[in-house]
């Protein structure tokens, strides 16, 4: 039994909404347990000559934590070490999901703002970023999702909360595509090879849940007549 009474492979409540920012090309808002994250996608636009690549698009990811998002980060707004690291790993994960060679010389910006943090924000940001990219009409190889697995009380569990993350024996955020290709895998703590294998298997088994989550979000958006928000650039 875990600290909040969940089963080993039980996720927290997840709610996803897409298309909520008018001025972004695509946007998404996710509530994952107590995590609240807003993602906007801008572009593709022409990349500045200093960073442009004429064969593929450049992806820029900016992960920011609001000053009020959690206790430790209180009062700091400049990107800290943690934010810089997460921006980098998410950029690399998303670069492998987006068909970057379709937009040569382009720049795609993904802006992530964490309003409230309670463990597992990087994987929650990843799910929201994928939904926002689909909403923006950017070509993706496949849909992707992420869950942070971890080791608590000598057992591998899914979706660590903040206490489990801080007091547990290890934490393994994993982002994969629906087909099962790994896009991001980080590991902190001591974990055997077999435990890692079973963690990846557990994440892969949640495939259908995330597929339905993203599909439902878009079905809700398009099932009724579209609101005025769709008529952009007026």
């Amino acid at each position, binding site marked *: 039994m875990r600290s909040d009474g969940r089963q080993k492979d039980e996720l927290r409540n997840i709610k996803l909404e897409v298309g909520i920012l008018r001025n972004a090309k*695509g946007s998404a808002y996710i509530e994952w347990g107590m995590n609240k994250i807003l993602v906007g996608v801008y572009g593709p636009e*022409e990349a500045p000559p200093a960073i442009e690549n004429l064969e593929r698009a450049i992806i820029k990811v900016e992960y920011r934590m609001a000053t009020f998002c959690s206790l430790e980060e209180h009062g700091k707004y400049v990107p800290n070490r943690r934010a810089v690291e997460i921006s980098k790993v998410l950029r690399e994960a998303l670069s492998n999901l987006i068909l970057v060679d379709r937009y040569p010389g*382009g720049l795609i910006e993904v802006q992530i703002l964490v309003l409230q943090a309670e463990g597992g924000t990087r994987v929650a940001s990843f799910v929201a970023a994928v939904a926002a990219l689909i*909403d923006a009409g950017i070509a993706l190889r496949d849909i992707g999702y992420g869950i942070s697995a971890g080791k608590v009380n000598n057992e591998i569990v899914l979706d660590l909360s903040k206490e489990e993350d801080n007091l547990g024996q290890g934490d393994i955020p994993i982002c994969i*595509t629906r087909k099962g290709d790994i896009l991001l895998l980080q590991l902190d703590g001591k974990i055997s090879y077999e435990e890692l294998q079973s963690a990846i298997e557990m994440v892969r088994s949640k495939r259908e849940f995330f*597929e339905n989550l993203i599909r439902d979000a878009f079905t809700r958006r*398009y099932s009724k007549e*579209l609101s005025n928000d769709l008529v952009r650039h007026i």
Partner: protein
Amino acid sequence: MRVILPGDMENIYNLHLEGIDAAIETVYIPKPRDVVIGKIIAEKKNVAYIVDISSFYAMSIMIRGLEMRLNIGDYVMGVVSQTGETLENVRLLRNGVIYRVPESKVGRIVGSKGEMLKLIEKLSNSKLEVGRNGIIWIGRGDFSRAIDIINTIVKRAHIRGLTDYIMKNFGDAK
């Protein structure tokens, strides 16, 4: 209604609705022989005009061989050349209203064999030029009525029976 996500089927990389061919939202990528409308944003002295076509890179118009003088801020209509970087057969669009819609809705606004476009022109008594990149020039007639109809099409682009809906809502007032 079923939503088709990227990766659901072979060669599907954007969001689709079941039964409708065009993707719901896409990014415009210039293709050779596309007719586009753009705005002149800069001039390279005696070489080229730079045209913003609301894609992720700008087009240029070569000044050599061009018979008119263009100014920054003018809207022009042209055909994307084989190389995909310059505009040919350029025409200046004067005295009209420019309206922008998402690029993926252009197919619905033009309709099959241009039927919807003719309907809009008839109902609002206007002259329209539609660029494949989502920029529309409305030449004369009832601008606000034409924009009303275009907005309705954009909002309901994913619903069947659009022509009937437009006829029902805008057809009788004339």
